């Protein structure tokens, strides 16, 4: 399967891609009210987390936990939430698995449209609309909480932050898409998706900064759980960009982490392509 959308050269290919984006944008804008309310509600669990950590800091003599002050933790949760807005892909893997199961995926086999490109365009449209609407609640909460943030980082760090966000979007997309493609081999992927979500929930940094795992031994000499997690893709979908903004990762560590993130994007993109190629070859088109 080529990356091209049709046989009419790059210009036509761009046009087809743009049309897909526009269709998905229109589709998404229908539910803008739901989006805005849903986004604001999603901050509620964070409120309890902030109170929990405030109580922890009140009870301990430490000035920081794993290098995070109380204010750092609040800022961390906000930034991790921002990252999740880039990397989370609700319904992507289950949607792909469903289209395989009910047979609707076959239209992408006969049309001159590449399925992965279509899904990516749809996701970008989804995210663009989401940001257009979510910028209000997000902006409001960030401005209200600006006192918790350290002074903004320098321009280089900021550009790396933006880059890490874009990479986290791509990583989240290709991981979930690959997971959905497993539907070619096992028809029901929901338990796999569940296992993935559990690991993701704990190891992405969604619940706590991964630095807190630095004191937890793995049994390997000199290797903590945080050292292991660093080589896995999960922390790049929530922890990493937040830690970059807060200046928790610097110098050679930062370069290495960025390289690991980029490498995972490439690996997962290839895995997704391979899964699609092999999957469609053995696909038997269930359904009418």
């Amino acid at each position, binding site marked *: 399967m080529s990356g091209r959308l049709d046989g009419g050269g790059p210009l036509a290919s761009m046009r087809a891609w743009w049309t897909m984006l526009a269709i998905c944008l229109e589709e998404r804008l229908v539910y803008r009210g739901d989006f805005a309310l849903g986004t604001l509600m999603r901050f509620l669990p964070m409120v*309890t987390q902030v109170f929990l950590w*405030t109580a922890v800091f009140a009870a301990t003599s430490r000035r920081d936990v794993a290098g995070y002050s109380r204010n750092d933790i609040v800022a961390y949760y906000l930034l991790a939430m921002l990252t999740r807005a880039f990397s989370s892909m609700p319904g992507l893997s289950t949607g792909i698995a469903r289209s395989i199961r009910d047979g609707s995926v076959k239209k992408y086999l006969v049309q001159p449209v590449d399925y992965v490109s279509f899904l990516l365009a749809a996701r970008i449209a989804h995210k663009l609309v989401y940001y257009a609407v979510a910028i209000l609640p997000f902006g409001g909460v960030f401005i209200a909480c600006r006192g918790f943030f350290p002074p903004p980082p320098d321009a280089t760090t900021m550009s790396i932050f933006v880059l890490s966000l874009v990479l986290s979007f791509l990583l989240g997309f290709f991981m979930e898409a690959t997971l959905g493609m497993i539907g070619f081999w096992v028809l029901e992927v929901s338990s796999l998706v569940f296992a993935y979500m559990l690991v993701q929930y704990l190891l992405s940094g969604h619940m706590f900064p991964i630095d807190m795992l630095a004191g*937890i031994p793995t049994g390997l000499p000199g290797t903590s759980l945080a050292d292991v997690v660093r080589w896995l893709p999960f922390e790049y979908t929530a922890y990493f960009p937040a830690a970059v903004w807060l200046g928790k990762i610097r110098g050679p560590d930062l370069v290495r982490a960025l390289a690991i993130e980029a490498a995972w994007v490439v690996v997962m993109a290839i895995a997704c392509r391979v899964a699609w190629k092999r999957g469609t070859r053995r696909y038997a088109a269930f359904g009418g």
Partner: protein
Amino acid sequence: MGRYLAIFLTFARACLVRDMTFRANFILESVTSLGWMSMNLAFYMLVFQFTPEIGKGTGWTREPFFAFVATGLIINSIVQAFFMPSAEELTEMVRTGGLDAVLVQPLDAQFLLSMHRVDYSSLANGAVGVGLLAWALARMGHAPPPVAWLLYPLLLLCGVAILYALVIVLAAATIHMGRNQSLYDFWFYMTNFSRYPAEIYAGPWGGPIRALFTFVLPILLVVNVPARVIARPLAGGAWWPVAGVVAAALAALVVSRVVFQRSLAKYRSASS
């Protein structure tokens, strides 16, 4: 009353037969909820790596806190098993007009709509909650006084009653709005506040939150009061929350009943 109990037991039996027919699904669902729960327990264990207690001088050290978590698991699993599945079905019933068939039955509509489905897999978390409670109490160094053992089941029931009332009010909102896909979301976001000891809501922002969720929407009482009674010795002045949670449970049941009945009166059938 006896008739209702007999009908409820029939529902419960039918649902058990159904759950046991699709045994693999039942096991998968149990594992799912156990999985999420263990992630949360892992997080709490991590938190206690960094602090001896939650909030200075509150007494919520590790074992009492896990007794608190266990209490929350038990209460939530009862609500999720017995009331949530039916309330979720109500959304679909209003949309399709299936509610009509319920309203013409010679039975109380609220009973029928909130208790006809039992989801046994949700009880898995409650079972773990009981185990966790036993572990936490055994390690606490002081056994709860006999009065605490007597009060604890009653207070658990009060907690269940308050959450049940919340489910009923949310379900009533479904009838008004015609659709309520975010019923479960809203439930999750609200009950989220009851997951931690009330003492953490302190300071200029925490105070109002604590007051709101204690006196207006009493979800902070749900887990806090029974957990306090079982996990921390009651001091002289600590008896008023016990009376408070009983009163809150009764009030919540009455209010939810009134709200639900009024919403039903507004229901216009969707079927033709």
